[in-house]
């Protein structure tokens, strides 16, 4: 053979045989096979250096490599390897291997409960679902609750007690703590401080009381960076007491939100979302809807679902509220600042609409607005006669945390003056998330003994002397209250993986009364419950997930007057707005890869935060998406990239908190920009006096959806209520439903007569909260891919929520559309697979057989909805032990080179079918729930047997609003949508 490849003379003219620029010469196959590079390729079957594949390699060489490896690989891995199998030593009762067991518990968020039911396999929790019996869950979950399972199995969790950076033991910690406690006892705890997260746990609060009794001069501060202080202080202003307003959204016909993201923020958001969507149902012949007005600076989920949305700066919302209160004849309200003509018009129209709905209207103020706005909302509700009807009041389960911010500032002052000797943190991360002018970090070394109980060794643990690992909520015995006071006794799903301690156990150590978390909780409840048969009470409460009759009693308070007499305007042209991040919250979820990769509901950004501003402001600054600007506020500067957000209020710039962490873990570190560096304690949520200058340069921001145009196709169909009433079939297009004969293919699958699976998604209720995405990720073992791969469009979410904007860029209408695999009856992806890895079942599922797939990707090419996801690399982490526990054993974990997509949760369908087959019974409607369906708070996803005329999904598909997306392509999708209807007020 020659040294070089020379094309024979006959083919010189053909361009395809021109030599490539980089000449790689191979003498023979053997030489190729024996080269060192090739040997290393063989050894690392899944090369981690993916960059090599980004280098241009000629097709010819690629085929040569594959050919050689084929020859060598023929005789490996034919023989089934022998594996061991290990039985349990003593089989536990009620555990059948292979069948999951479900337990009820609750996770606390901001101190208040989210009731859940957790699916466990062989003693390991694998999936979280909502608890239908819990008042603030009603069977649904939010993104944080779904992602909590990944938090529990986070490999970066702290696994041992750490003392000054060295691994230590709990005994050493107790030995070091005891003399400090002895010293404190002598001074009645004058220099003793405990800082915990906000809690409503009766047992922990009892321990707090015991602590303050043992150390009367000590303090126990409850602090969260994004707590509900404004709401509590607002209630204090209005009623004189720390009350919670519990909304009865289902009874409200007109709802006004003053910068309140109540459908996606707050402890009872799932309930509010459910009731809100129920009030907008147009199925089964209903023709009335509630109406939502939202006034807010930056687009939020609630704003996107609103019938009318006004983009108003955060600092102008108080003025709006004042004007609205005056229009509703609330007394003693001083006028606010100047409002734009549009805002003035809104005040009049909204006031008129509210006045027409006395007793069935509702005004909600957002947690990011100052207390006076909350008090005004209470006053307006009272003036409209809503109190007791659409809103009721009860004591707050977290009332004792209302002064948390002031307490933290006092603490730092005390630390500065060396008046604190013993400081204990129970969870939380104040070093990272305190306002920048509260300099906790600076004075940490003035405290003699600092210890922290935490899930991770985060920024605060880094500056503490001792770190004790905390048990995750899924590993803990705990009790926690819902917003209305209903108590859940939370039980662990698994023993603490790393021997972590619950807050109750930790405080018990401090109180020198060490017991296990179980004993502490049970003893407390034995005393408190005062029931005759404690054991049955205990079992029943654990089984149900709630303790019955523990809701706090409602009050009928009267609104005081005089709290709104004075108004001081916020000065400055441009305001800065600090918001919790929709997926990272205050930073606590920074190390959760699912949440980092979850596209934010409005901006669709992943892995970073940005400064959001209006298109007009971006034009003035001459910036594009990703361009860096310098934010100058109160003498501090932060450089952030911008993200142009249609619908954002002008002269206002918002930035979400929770990014820029330094000690979150391998996932969370060094992502995004730390907005806490600008946040000050006197203006935690918004302030004027911001100067924005273009810095030059840009930062790569990665969003999963960068253009929000439907490009003339009717992907999401919407109309006003009046249009719907005059023409209920406004979304029907004959071209969507082509005749069956309109196909060239003769390979239409033979479909079963009795069973056919289908799905409907009601666009009228979808808020775009993204809970379905995380639920699907958790149920189907979907991997994350990282920022770089997301920038190439390779995120693996089987369900995505698309956002479309319609109208002007200043205040567009936003439409959310969840998109799953449509399981087309005439699927374009099926005929093109060369190996038959995707085919159709008689029941209508487009099934995906991973072991046949060779990775041609023709199916994804052909899919008009682009719902097929390809594993370009080995995205699934198959080495980290914790993830092996976490994964759902009923779903294959896909390897590199395999296509995957939504399967209508075929494992859930099969589970129910098998059970039904074993007992020869029919499958009931609603018995099979897909993961997205069960997580959805607004219950807009309905799955079932479309051939069963009585099933809910068949009824919904007969609704006049039912339409098929891209139905004119003739694919006959099994997932159809119900068009969105807006209850528009013609006066605006």
């Amino acid at each position, binding site marked *: 053979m020659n040294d070089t490849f020379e094309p024979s003379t006959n083919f010189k003219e053909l361009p395809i045989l021109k030599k490539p620029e980089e000449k790689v010469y191979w003498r023979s196959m053997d030489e190729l096979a024996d080269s060192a590079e090739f040997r290393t390729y063989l050894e690392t079957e899944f090369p981690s250096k993916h960059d090599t594949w980004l280098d241009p390699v000629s097709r010819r060489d690629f085929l040569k490599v594959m050919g050689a490896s084929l020859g060598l690989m*023929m005789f490996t891995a*034919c*023989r*089934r390897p*022998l*594996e*061991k*199998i*290990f*039985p*349990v*030593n*003593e*089989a536990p009762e009620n555990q*059948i*291997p*292979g*069948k999951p067991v479900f337990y009820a518990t609750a996770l606390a968020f901001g101190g208040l409960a989210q009731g859940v039911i957790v699916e466990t396999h062989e003693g390991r929790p694998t999936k979280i679902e909502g608890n239908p019996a819990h008042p603030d869950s009603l069977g649904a979950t939010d993104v944080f609750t779904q992602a909590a399972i990944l938090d529990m199995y986070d490999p970066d969790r702290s696994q041992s007690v750490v003392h000054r950076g060295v691994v230590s033991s709990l005994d050493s910690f107790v030995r070091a703590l005891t003399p400090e406690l002895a010293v404190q006892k002598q001074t009645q705890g004058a220099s003793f401080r405990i800082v915990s997260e906000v809690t409503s746990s009766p047992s922990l609060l009892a321990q707090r009381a015991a602590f303050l009794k043992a150390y009367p001069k000590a303090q126990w501060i409850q602090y969260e960076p994004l707590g509900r202080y404004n709401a509590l202080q607002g209630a204090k202003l209005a009623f004189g007491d720390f009350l919670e307003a519990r909304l009865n959204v289902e009874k409200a016909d007109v709802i006004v939100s003053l910068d309140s993201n109540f459908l996606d923020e707050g402890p009872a958001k799932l309930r509010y979302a459910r009731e809100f969507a129920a009030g907008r149902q147009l199925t089964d012949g209903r023709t009335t809807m509630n109406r939502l007005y939202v006034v807010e600076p930056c687009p939020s989920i609630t704003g996107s679902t609103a019938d009318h949305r006004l983009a108003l700066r955060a600092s102008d919302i108080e003025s709006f509220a004042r004007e609205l209160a005056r229009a509703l004849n609330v007394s003693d309200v001083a006028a606010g600042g100047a409002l734009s003509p549009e805002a003035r018009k809104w005040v009049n129209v909204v006031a008129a609409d509210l006045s027409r709905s006395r007793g069935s209207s509702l005004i909600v103020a957002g947690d990011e607005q100052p207390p006076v706005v909350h008090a005004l909302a209470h006053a307006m509700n009272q003036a409209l006669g809503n109190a007791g009807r659409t809103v009721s009041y009860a004591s707050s389960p977290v009332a004792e945390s209302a002064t948390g911010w002031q307490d933290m500032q006092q603490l730092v002052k005390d630390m500065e003056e060396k008046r604190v000797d013993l400081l204990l943190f129970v969870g939380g991360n104040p070093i990272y998330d305190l306002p920048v002018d509260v300099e906790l970090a600076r004075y940490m070394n003035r405290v003699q003994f600092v210890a922290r109980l935490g899930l991770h060794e985060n920024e605060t643990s880094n500056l503490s002397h001792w770190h004790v690992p905390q048990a995750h909520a899924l590993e803990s015995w705990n009790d926690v209250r819902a917003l209305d006071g209903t108590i859940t006794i939370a039980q662990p799903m698994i023993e603490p993986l790393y021997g972590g301690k619950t807050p109750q156990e930790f405080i018990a150590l401090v109180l020198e009364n060490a017991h296990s978390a179980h004993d502490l909780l049970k003893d407390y409840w034995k005393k408190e419950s005062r029931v005759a048969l404690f054991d049955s009470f205990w079992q029943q409460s654990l089984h149900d997930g709630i303790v019955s009759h523990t809701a706090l009693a409602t009050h009928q308070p009267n609104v005081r007057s005089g709290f709104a007499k004075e108004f001081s305007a916020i000065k400055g042209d441009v305001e800065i707005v600090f918001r919790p991040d929709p997926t990272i919250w205050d930073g606590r979820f920074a190390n959760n890869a699912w949440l980092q990769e979850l596209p934010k509901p409005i901006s669709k950004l992943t892995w970073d935060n940005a400064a959001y501003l209006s298109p007009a402001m971006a034009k003035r600054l001459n910036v594009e998406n990703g361009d860096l600007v310098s934010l100058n506020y109160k003498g501090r500067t932060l450089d952030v990239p911008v993200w142009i957000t249609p619908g954002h209020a002008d002269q206002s710039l918002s930035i979400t908190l929770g990014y820029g962490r330094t000690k979150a873990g391998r996932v969370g570190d060094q992502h995004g920009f730390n907005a806490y560096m600008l946040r000050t304690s006197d203006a935690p949520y918004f302030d004027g006096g911001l100067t924005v200058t273009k810095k030059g340069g840009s930062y790569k921001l990665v969003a999963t959806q960068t253009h929000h145009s439907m490009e003339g196709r009717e992907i999401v169909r919407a109309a006003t209520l009046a249009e719907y009433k005059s023409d209920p079939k406004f979304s029907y297009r004959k071209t969507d439903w082509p005749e069956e004969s309109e196909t060239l293919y003769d390979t239409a699958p*033979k479909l*079963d007569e009795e069973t056919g699976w289908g799905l409907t998604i009601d666009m009228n209720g979808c808020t775009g909260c993204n809970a379905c995405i995380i639920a699907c990720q958790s149920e189907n073992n979907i991997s994350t891919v990282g920022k770089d791969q997301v920038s190439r469009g390779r995120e693996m979410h089987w369900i995505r929520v698309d956002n479309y904007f319609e109208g002007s860029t200043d205040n567009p209408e936003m439409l959310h559309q969840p998109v799953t695999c449509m399981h087309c009856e005439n699927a374009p992806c099926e005929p093109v697979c060369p190996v038959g890895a995707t*085919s159709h*079942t*008689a029941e209508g*599922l487009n*099934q995906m*057989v*991973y*072991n046949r797939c060779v990775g041609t990707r023709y199916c994804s090419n052909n899919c008009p909805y682009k719902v097929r996801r390809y594993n370009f690399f080995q995205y699934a982490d198959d080495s980290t032990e914790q993830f092996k526990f976490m994964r759902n054993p*009923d*779903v*294959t974990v896909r390897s590199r080179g395999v296509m995957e997509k939504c*399967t209508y949760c*075929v*494992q859930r369908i*099969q589970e129910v079918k*098998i059970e039904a*087959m*074993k*007992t*020869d019974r029919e499958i009931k409607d609603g018995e099979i729930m897909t993961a997205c369906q069960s997580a959805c708070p607004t219950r807009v996803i309905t799955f079932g047997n479309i051939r069963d005329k009585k099933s809910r999904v068949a009824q919904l598909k007969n609704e006049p609003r039912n339409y098929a997306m891209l139905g004119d392509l003739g694919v006959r999708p099994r997932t159809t949508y119900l068009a969105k209807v807006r209850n528009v007020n013609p006066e605006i």
Partner: protein
Amino acid sequence: MAQIFSRNSNPLSRLLIALVIFTVLGGLGLITAVYRSPYMNRVGVPPEQPVPFSHKHHVQQLGIDCRFCHTSVENSSFAGIPSAKTCMTCHSQMWTNAQVLEPVREAFRTNQPVPWVRVHHLPEFVYFNHSVHIAKGVACTTCHGPVDHMEMLYQHSTLWMSWCLQCHRHPEKFVGAKAAVFQSNWIDSRTQDLNMNIDLAKAELPDGNSLQTPEDIRKALVKHRKIPNAMSMTECYVCHR
């Protein structure tokens, strides 16, 4: 012009071509034979176990039902293998000091499992559910063979997909009476001896006495059990999720 090829090039080339074809076919045949041999699929080859547990002794001679140890076979996808405590229910009182049982006693003492070698193991991309097969009348011995004759357990069936499809395409050939599912007498389905347990099957069917041939009885069983048709049972998602 001089001849390039000698006279015997013709037969030589013919021989060579035949040889090449023979080698290629022979090679493929050899590979296939090796691949289908017990060396590769482990049929009939009992692996070495930490404890020489004899199914023949326990099932045939002592008459213990399958479910005494494999407890979850009627409820779950996984049949279950017995915990050390199950073994100790008897062996705490008999053969208490036998040397062969030392690993079991040690496991029970130290709370470490006995490291059994897995005989029947489907690849990870296959989902198999025992309980539904039991519910539909597939006897344990149909797939697992004459377990009651096995001193050391070996794999009786290849467990290949083609082998599974034999039944999934023609369930009436393998489904039997429900009362016979856990009986240890094994029917060699290859010889198609359909007369075993036919009375039990007749008793189970509502109109069993009117049926004459074993084929009719088995077909009636399939219908009575509402076993889906071959089309539904051979769809990919049934086993490959």
